[in-house]
C-alpha cells in the first residue's frame, strides 16, 4: 500500500490546463463515481485550490494507479496528453504526505501563507467523505493535515505579515484598534488602491463608511456602492471628529490636512486614536502629523516598506514551518508503518501481556504468600485466557487481506477496537476546536 499524489499547479501548468482539470470539481459526483471503480485505488480525494488541482490516493500498486489517473485526466478531449505529461508532478509515500502538509499550510502557494487554502481542502475532504471515497489512511492523513496547518498558522505566524499594500493598512489598523467592528472609515478621493483597502476594511465589519469627494456626484456614486454617506471635501476637518480610519487618495497638489488642524481635532476628539493612510502621490497629508500623540500616519512608501518587511518575515517563518512539516511527516509515516498485519499483532500481544502482568501483581498482593506451583498455575491460567481471547482477532488479521480492495479498514478497526494508538484520541479532539 502506498500513497500517491499527482497534480498540476501554477508552477508546472499553464492556466488553461489548470482550468480544464479544475472543471472536474463542479462535477465531483461523476468524478468520484468513476475513480472509485478503479480496482487499483483503495482511497482517493481530489481537491483544487486557486492554483492547483491534485489527486491523492492510496494504492496497492502505485504504478498502475498512476496510469489509471493519467488516463482519467486525458479523457477530456481538450487536454493534450503531451501537455499533461509535461505538467503533471507525482509524489509517492512520505513525499506525498509532505506535499499535502505543505499545500494545506500554504507553503506551496503563490502568496506564501494565504489563509484560503486550508478551507478549500477541508471542503474537498467533506465532499470526498460524502462520496465515501476516503478510508482509514486518508481520514487520518487529512485530520493530521488540518492540525498541522493550524499549528503552522498559530505557531509560526506565517500569515501574520501583510504582503499587499491594502492589507497592510488593515493589519496596522488592527494593531492600533484591536477589533475594527463599529469603526468609522473616511475615504477621501478615490482610486483603485484606496478602494481595495476599503474593501478589506469592510471585510473586518467596520461600522460607518463616509466618502468625501471633490465632485459630490462621484462621491454619491461611491457612497452608494459602499452603502456609506457622501460629504463634500470642505467638511473634511469636521468629519475628522467622528472618523477612526482615514484613507486619502486625491490628486490634490497641496496638503489637505495640516498638522495644526489634526492637532486641534485630536483635542476635540479627546485623544481617541486616529489612523491616517495617505496613498496619494503627491501626498495629501502633512507628514508632520505623525509627530502627534495617538495619531498614526502612513504614506504609500511606509506601507510598501511594511509589505517588504512582511515578505521577508514570511520567508523566515516559512523555514520554521518547513521543519514542523518535516517532523509531522515522519510521525505520520511511523503510524503508517504500524498499520500492517504484524506490527498490529505484536501490539495486541504486548497490550494483553502488560494487562495480565499488572493484574497478576495486584492479585498476588492480596493473596499473601503463594507456593511456586500455585504461582505457575496462575500464570498458566492468565496466559491461556489471553491467548484464547486473542486467537480469533489474530486469525482475522492474518487472513489474506491483500486480495481485498482496502485491507486497512480491518486493521484500522482492530487498532481502534483495542485502542492501540494511544496518541490518537488527543489528536482528533485537538483538531476539532
Amino acid at each position, binding site marked *: 500500500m502506498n500513497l500517491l499524489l499527482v497534480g498540476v499547479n501554477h508552477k508546472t501548468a499553464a492556466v488553461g490546463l489548470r482550468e480544464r482539470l479544475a472543471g472536474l470539481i463542479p462535477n465531483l459526483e461523476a468524478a468520484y463515481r468513476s475513480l472509485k471503480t478503479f480496482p487499483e485505488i483503495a482511497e482517493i480525494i481530489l481537491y483544487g485550490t486557486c492554483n492547483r488541482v491534485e489527486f491523492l490516493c492510496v494504492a496497492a500498486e502505485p504504478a498502475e494507479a498512476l496510469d489509471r489517473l493519467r488516463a482519467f485526466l486525458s479523457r477530456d478531449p481538450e487536454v493534450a496528453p503531451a501537455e499533461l505529461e509535461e505538467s503533471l508532478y507525482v509524489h509517492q509515500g512520505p513525499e506525498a504526505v509532505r506535499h499535502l502538509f505543505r499545500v494545506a499550510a500554504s507553503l506551496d502557494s503563490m502568496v506564501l501563507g494565504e489563509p484560503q487554502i486550508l478551507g478549500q481542502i477541508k471542503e474537498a475532504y467533506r465532499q470526498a467523505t460524502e462520496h465515501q471515497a476516503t478510508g482509514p489512511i486518508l481520514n487520518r492523513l487529512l485530520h493530521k493535515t488540518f492540525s498541522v496547518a493550524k499549528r503552522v498558522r498559530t505557531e509560526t505566524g506565517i500569515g*501574520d505579515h501583510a504582503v499587499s499594500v491594502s492589507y497592510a493598512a488593515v493589519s496596522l489598523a488592527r*494593531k492600533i*484598534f484591536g477589533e475594527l467592528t463599529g469603526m468609522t472609515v473616511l475615504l477621501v478621493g478615490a482610486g483603485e488602491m484606496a478602494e481595495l483597502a476599503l474593501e478589506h476594511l469592510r471585510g473586518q465589519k467596520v461600522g460607518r463608511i463616509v466618502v468625501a469627494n471633490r465632485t459630490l456626484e462621484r462621491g454619491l456614486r461611491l457612497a452608494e456602492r459602499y452603502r456609506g454617506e457622501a460629504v463634500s471635501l470642505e467638511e473634511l476637518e469636521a468629519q475628522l471628529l467622528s472618523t477612526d480610519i482615514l484613507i486619502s487618495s486625491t490628486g490634490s497638489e497641496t496638503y489637505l490636512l495640516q498638522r495644526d488642524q489634526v492637532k486641534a481635532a485630536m483635542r476635540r476628539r479627546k485623544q481617541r486614536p486616529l489612523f491616517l493612510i495617505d496613498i496619494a502621490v503627491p501626498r495629501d497629508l502633512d507628514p508632520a502629523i505623525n509627530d502627534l500623540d495617538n495619531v498614526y500616519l502612513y504614506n504609500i512608501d511606509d506601507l510598501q516598506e511594511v509589505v517588504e518587511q512582511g515578505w521577508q518575515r514570511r520567508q523566515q517563518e516559512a523555514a520554521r514551518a518547513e521543519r514542523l512539516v518535516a517532523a509531522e511527516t515522519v510521525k505520520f509515516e511511523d503510524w503508517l508503518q504500524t498499520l500492517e498485519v504484524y506490527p498490529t499483532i505484536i501490539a495486541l500481544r504486548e497490550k494483553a501481556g502488560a494487562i495480565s502482568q499488572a493484574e497478576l501483581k495486584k492479585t498476588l498482593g492480596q493473596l499473601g504468600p503463594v507456593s511456586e506451583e500455585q504461582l505457575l498455575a496462575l500464570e498458566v491460567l492468565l496466559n491461556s485466557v489471553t491467548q484464547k481471547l486473542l486467537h480469533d482477532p489474530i486469525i482475522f488479521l492474518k487472513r489474506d487481506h491483500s486480495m481485498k480492495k482496502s485491507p486497512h479498514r480491518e486493521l484500522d478497526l482492530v487498532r481502534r477496537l483495542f485502542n492501540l494508538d494511544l496518541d490518537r484520541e488527543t489528536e482528533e479532539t485537538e483538531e476539532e476546536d
Partner: protein
Amino acid sequence: MIDYFVYFVLAAYFGATALWLAFFLIQRESLCRYGAWVLAAGLAAHTLVLIQRTWASGYLPVAVFGEALLLFDWVLVAAFLILNWRYPIRVLGALVAPLAALLVYGSLILPQGQAGVISPLLRGFWLTAHIGLTLGGYAALTLNFLGGIFYLIQERQLKAKKFGFFYRRLPSLSQLDTLNYWCLTIGFPLFTGGIITGSLYAQHTLGRFWSWDPKEVLTLIAWLIYAVLLHERLTVGWRGRRASWLAIMGFLVLAVTFVGANLWISGYHSFSKFVQP
C-alpha cells in the same frame, strides 16, 4: 513542614515563568493555559503558607519586609489570575510570572525576623483594612505599570514603522490601553482607601492622622501622580503614551515607597520598627 510549601510556591512560579516565556517565544496557545494552571497551583500553596503564618503568629504576616513582600506577591498573582480570566491579555503573564517568582525568592533571602515581640500597633481591623486595600491597590497599579511598558514598546514600533520581534507578539494598542485604564480605575480607589484607613488608624492609635513620615510623603507623591493621571484621562482623554509614562513614574515612586523606605529610610512606618527586641 509549611516551609516546604514556600519552596513549592517558588518552583511553581518559576515553572509558570518558563511556560509563559515559551508561549511568548513560540506562541503555542496551550503553553499559556498550562502557565495559568501552574500559577494557580502556586497560588493555592501560597494561600496555605499565608494562612499558616497568620494562624501561628496571630497577626497578618506583615511585620517583616520579607513577609510583606510575600503577602503583596499573593495579591499580585491573584489579581493577575482574575484579570487573565476576565480580560485575557496573555502576554502579560510573561512579565507577571517572573515578577511573582522573584518576589517569593526575595522574601526568602531577606532576613526573617522571628525574635522579638511584634508591635501591638499591628493589630486591629482598621490596620488589616489598611494593608489589604494598599496591597490590592499596589497589585493593580503594578499590572498597570507592566501594561504601560508593553504599550510603549508597541507604540514605538507603530510610530517608527519598524516592526520587530514584539510587534506580532503584543496585542493591539487599544487592548493595552484598556487594560491600563481598568487597572488604574480599580487600583486608584483601593490605594486611596488604603491611605484613608491608614490615617484613621493612625488617628486612633497615635493621635494624629498624618505624621510626615518618609513613607507617607512618598505615598502622597505617588497618589498625586495617579490622581493627575486619572483626572487627565477622564477630562481631556489622556491615553496611550503619556498615560503609560505617568503610570510608570507613579509605579517607580510606589516601589521606592514600599522597598526603599523600608530598607534605607527610617520612620515609624519602617518594618524595622514593627518588631521590638
